[in-house]
């Protein structure tokens, strides 16, 4: 059996036997990315809704900045969070560099613009359709925008899944602020990078399969959402 085929076989065995190291890394990855997405959703959905409804001086500039942040490189986020949390940084006293908390902060910053920008677009489109009518019923601008998040909950679910996919598959930021410490801050992407560089392909491959499966699952759910949104299509007929 060739080395690559052997690696594949070992990787599959690690998965089927639920290898403790593999499970620990996968669980930590889910916990960190899930927490980051929850925090970014709490801030980003409200910020997006507010940006869709609010009218203020400099709004265009804010929207331009937000759209620019969509393409924020993860290593830049990692670097900025590192600078902020390092001992000599403004938040150095927190002492959370190289902990999962720092990784959550980095991923939150990474996906926040995605959630805010997409939520703004979704809410703005919905407000164009029914904003006047909600206002006529007594809703203020922000209340109308928040109601639109509820109205467009399928689209919101899709954008949150997309944000989770981005968070769980990124490597640069979590590598810099987490440090890839075994058993503490090692997540799927950083473990893959490390094991590959060490030449330990079975664990890297097993993690790669799991990551691929996670991303595929997220995409499948995103694809299923429009199916669920068949109701929405019928509603819009």
């Amino acid at each position: 059996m060739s080395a690559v085929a052997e690696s594949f076989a070992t990787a599959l065995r690690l998965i089927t036997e639920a290898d403790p190291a593999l499970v620990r890394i996968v669980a930590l990855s889910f916990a960190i990315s899930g927490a980051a997405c929850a925090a970014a959703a709490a801030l980003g959905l409200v910020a997006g809704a507010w940006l869709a409804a609010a009218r203020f001086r400099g709004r265009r500039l804010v929207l331009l900045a937000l759209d620019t942040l969509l393409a924020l490189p993860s290593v830049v986020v990692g670097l900025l969070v590192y600078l902020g949390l390092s001992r000599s940084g403004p938040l150095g006293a927190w002492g959370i560099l190289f902990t999962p908390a720092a990784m959550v902060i980095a991923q939150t910053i990474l996906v926040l613009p995605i959630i805010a920008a997409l939520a703004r677009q979704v809410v703005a489109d919905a407000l164009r359709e029914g904003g006047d009518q909600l206002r006529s019923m007594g809703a203020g601008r922000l209340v109308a925008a928040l109601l639109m998040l509820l109205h467009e909950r399928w689209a919101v679910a899709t954008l949150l899944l997309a944000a989770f996919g981005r968070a769980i598959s990124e490597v640069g930021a979590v590598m810099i602020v987490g440090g890839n410490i075994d058993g503490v801050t090692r997540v799927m992407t950083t473990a893959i990078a490390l094991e590959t560089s060490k030449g330990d392909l079975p664990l890297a491959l097993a993690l790669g399969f799991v990551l691929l499966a996670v991303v595929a699952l997220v995409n499948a759910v995103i694809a299923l959402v429009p199916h669920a949104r068949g109701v929405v299509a019928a509603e819009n007929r």
Partner: protein
Amino acid sequence: MATAEPLLALRDATVRFGDVVAVRDASLEIRAGESVAVVGANGSGKTTLLRTLHGVVEHTGTRRVSAAASPQAMVFQRPFLLRLSVRRNLRIALRLGAAELSTRERRLRAEEALARVGLQALGDRPARLLSGGEQQRLALARSWSVRPAVLFLDEPTANLDPSAKKEVEALLAGFIAEGMTIVMSTHNLGQAKRLATRIVYMDSGRIDADLPTAQFFADTIGGRADLFLKGDLSWSLE
């Protein structure tokens, strides 16, 4: 019965959308118990006048609203319904428009409104899966549930089939019989004749005639209003 003190008074209101003047120097008073139909050809400014009276459009004139004119509600030509159940749409409308009510009162009021428009059996159905007529009835229930002092209706039956049109008209006739003040825009002169006590005729953004219904249909008003009545401008008596 109409009283002397107007609920709403609009003076010299002009509404512009960019270069387009949708309403020009409009002055109008609405009194309690009146049922006013705003008629006119397409693009004559009926909807904008209604929205101006309702206070959701910026204008250059003055709009006086008496204390008795609150709350107000508006039913739009294409009602916007949230992707929620019929019942939840009603409860949200009540939360927005009658916030002083307790949760229990809102629940009761919602059920009462559903019964009023004959949608009780469809309370748990997604609002957007209702037929056009049912959606318009839900929009009426939503507005009626907040007990508006003035109810604005923008072409409430324009997109409906004859049977749904009849249902909605019967509901409106009921509201009017209860003394609700109604201001509606319509293309349908037959409907205006059946429901309104007063007709406001608009042409090119101006109020051309403002007469009691019987007088509007009996007299020769002159100008484009006569042409409109004859069906030479747009639409005819149904």
